[in-house]
């Protein structure tokens, strides 16, 4: 005998994205729960994790070692120390061992660094200048987006406020003087333009910030791929919940900026400041990179005087959730660089899937960029659910007022996808590829 479904405690949402809001309220993701979507997002997480394993290592290398090098020609040629550096969240000596991945560099990445797309053992500089390497420019673009959109989630995010503090300036000053010790030209320039050096130092701090953020995300994505390969994850919500749990597991990870000059370590942002992974890195990252960023040159003409660019920085909407993925491949824009990186590490099932659609091999960059967009809607869903969990009420809360508060929160989040550029509507169908 079928029992009648219990009457919902609150009436249905009237929001244009009501269907998605109801899905979120039921513990789902913004991305529809289909096996095809699950296969796509997990496949792309794996393809993303491999270059990300390089991004975080090199970002930390630049932030901590290259620092203010005025001619950082070899900043993408990472030292062996950083390449083999043990991830703090993977491997046997990890600070927190919840994901199974290895501590040092991923073998596929190691192979790619040696042989590149050319699949030849050429000297590193030849791979570098042939542009047959991991596109660190993408990682730097994400870092710059965070730097440019500073003060997101303030006052919860205290990182940016600290960058403007006297304490930070004093720490930076010590590091700058030590870095340019014995270099009267640069020290003279520093005297003339101290703010310029300080701003460069802030940028280096963001290098470290993003590096520390991605150090966590790489093993998370590897783990998700492994679970999927083992037959785990029954649907998209499982994948989302895995991310939510991951977010809470590492939320307190310290965010800091240490610079190594000679044998000394200069703590520009010490761990003791208490900056954490969730508030000082993850949330600003999602806001800056998924939502805001800036218009990419070469893809469209933006005329600020004709008000084609929002006056208010927080209204920027050029992130991956809004991006038109069709210009991918047209120019050296960050999405193209990332897509090119991911193309090298696609799992076979995803490659096979792309071969069957659109132009197969020829537009794989476009197809995977759109898959990536889908996957980032899932990551954003995880962030939204994590925020709801941290700030509001459980989804099965019996109090209608609490459910209504959750509803308002979800609706406010969905308001950001009302603008026509948002791809939320597109990712609801399988035809968008």
């Amino acid at each position, binding site marked *: 005998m079928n029992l009648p479904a219990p009457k919902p405690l609150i009436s249905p949402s009237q929001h244009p994205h009501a269907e998605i809001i109801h899905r979120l309220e039921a513990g789902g993701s913004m991305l529809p729960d289909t096996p095809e979507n699950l296969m796509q997002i997990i496949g792309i997480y794996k393809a993303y994790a491999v270059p990300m394993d390089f991004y975080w290592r090199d970002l930390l290398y630049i932030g901590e070692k290259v620092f203010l090098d005025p001619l950082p020609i070899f900043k993408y040629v990472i030292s062996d120390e950083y390449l083999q550096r043990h991830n703090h969240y993977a491997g046997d000596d990890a600070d927190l061992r919840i994901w199974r991945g290895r501590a040092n560099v991923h073998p596929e990445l190691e192979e790619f660094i040696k042989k590149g797309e050319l699949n030849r053992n050429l000297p590193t500089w030849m791979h570098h200048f042939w542009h047959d390497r991991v596109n660190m420019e993408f990682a730097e673009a994400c870092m710059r987006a965070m730097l440019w959109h500073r003060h997101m989630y303030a006052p919860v995010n205290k990182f940016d406020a600290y960058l403007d503090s006297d304490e930070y300036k004093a720490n930076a000053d010590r590091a700058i003087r030590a870095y340019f010790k014995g270099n009267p030209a640069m020290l003279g320039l520093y005297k003339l333009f101290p703010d310029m050096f300080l701003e460069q130092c802030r940028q280096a701090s963001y290098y470290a910030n993003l590096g520390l953020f991605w150090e966590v995300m790489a093993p998370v994505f590897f783990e998700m791929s492994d679970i999927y390969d083992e037959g785990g994850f029954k649907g998209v919500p499982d994948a989302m919940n895995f991310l939510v749990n991951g977010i809470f597991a590492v939320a307190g990870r310290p965010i800091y900026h240490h610079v190594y000059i000679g044998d000394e370590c200069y703590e520009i942002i010490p761990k003791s400041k208490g900056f954490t992974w969730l508030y000082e890195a993850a949330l600003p990252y999602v806001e800056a990179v998924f939502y805001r960023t800036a218009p990419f040159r070469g893809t*469209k003409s933006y005329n600020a005087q004709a008000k084609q660019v929002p006056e208010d920085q927080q209204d920027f909407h050029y992130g991956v959730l809004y991006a*038109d993925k*069709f*210009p991918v*491949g*047209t120019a050296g824009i960050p999405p193209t660089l990332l897509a090119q990186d991911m193309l090298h590490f696609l799992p076979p099932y995803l490659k096979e899937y792309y071969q069957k659609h*659109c*132009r197969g091999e020829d537009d794989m960059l476009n197809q995977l960029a759109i898959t990536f967009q889908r996957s980032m809607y899932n990551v954003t869903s995880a962030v939204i659910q994590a925020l709801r969990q941290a700030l509001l009420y459980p989804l099965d809360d019996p109090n209608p007022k609490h459910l209504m508060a959750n509803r308002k929160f979800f609706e406010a989040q969905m308001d950001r996808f009302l603008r026509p550029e948002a791809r939320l509507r*597109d990712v609801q169908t399988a035809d968008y590829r």
Partner: protein
Amino acid sequence: MLSPLIWLPLVGAIALGFAPGSLTSKWLRYGAIAIASLPLLWVLFLFTQFDLTQSGMQMQEYLPWIQTLGINYSLATDGLSLPLVGLSNLLVFLVVFGTDGGAISKEPLKRPRLFYALVLLISAGMAGALLAQNLLLFFLFYELELIPFYLLIVVWGGQKRDYAGMKFLIYTAVSGVLILAAFLAIVWLSGSGSFDYGEIALDDLPQRTQLILLTLLLVGFGIKIPLIPLHTWLPDAYVEASTPTAILLGGVLAKLGTYGLTRFGVGLFPETWSLVTPGVALIAAMCVMYGALAAIAQKDIKRMVAYSSIGHMGYVMLGLAAFTPLSMVGAVSQMVSHGLILALLFYIVGVIEAKVGTRELDVLNGLLNPIRGLPLTSSLLVLAGMASAGIPGMVGFVSEFLVFQGSFPVFPLPTLLCVVGTGLTAVYFVIMLNRTCFGRLDAKTAYYPRVSLKEQLPALGLTALIIWLGLQPGWLVRWSESTTAALVAQAPVERPLAQTGAQAVVGHGTMAPLAIAPDLVTSPN
């Protein structure tokens, strides 16, 4: 030597038309390609046999037919007809090669047997008309063209194909009637017992009569070219016709108009032609300006190309009107270059329509996108636009420059208007390219099929030819220099020259400055 150009495609058309029903579309296509390649190879061989120093008719063939009526099977070629025969055979080959590859049609070609037979019939008809040395034989082939073209429009055309086909039929039938009337009158009034081109002498006819006859020819062929205001059939026919038909209409059939006018108008009435040239030059300039301005106003890229064709045929008319050795070489070159460029444009427009599903300027966008767009097709469209606008390095520049250089001393104002017309050509091509190729590809619609290399081949071949002849113009003009110089030399009277006193200089000599105004040309009577 010339007969194979007529009979090979004719026999091929009949063979294909009655081919066994079990023959698949693929094999019909292969058969048609094989048949179409034979006259093309033959005409290439004829180019090697052509004597460049000789201005008169070559490779003559003569077979008495109905001698009581003065109709004979008489063929020959010269520097005027040979390049056009080459062009016609090339375009027919490309059409046969490119039609059923999926590039210029979304669906498989329907009724392929009839289609290929008709196209080959056009090839035979064109060769016959261009090579015929008997007025009635020419007329026979000229009219023969009408039937396959009408069928090609109404069977394979667009939504308004019946209307366009009927309009084309009526206009072209009127053109035929006028030409037939002129031909009959020419022979009867001249007292010649034969319709053979070489035997007709009109020197004794009063100039008034000559003027009437020439006007008949001018209007008759003017419809075919077309000259404004006789052009109104063209946009409908070109746009409603399928891409292969449009290529043949613009690249092949229109040339029959200018060829006929040159051969029979200018060739038989050189003196009277000089009399009407100021008016013709003015009409030519109007064609150029009208074609360009109308093209600017279009929202459909095929219609835009159709109007551009009207404009570009104006340059041929300007060259014919100026009637200097240089301008005549330019006119013949322009016929060839217009045929090549227009065919390329129509082919690319066809590819875009087949792949994107629209020709609307307001809908098309961002086709240069390297991954999801049609990058090579768009690049070829840019090249075709540049060629059409007369950018140096391509064949359009060579022929337009020759026309302008040859015409300016005689008709400075119409020439200047035509130069402005080339500027306007650049305007509408920039509009077209800007809207079609550049901009952002619409993510909601851009799931276009890929254009394969096989589908690109006809366009690539035409582009290669356009660039090669642009860089090596000698290969374009050498065939017609002697013939056109001889044609100009027929004109016994000196004609007006612009007050600039400039001289047109060509390889064969100089044109003496002329001093007599057209209204001062006295009638022999």
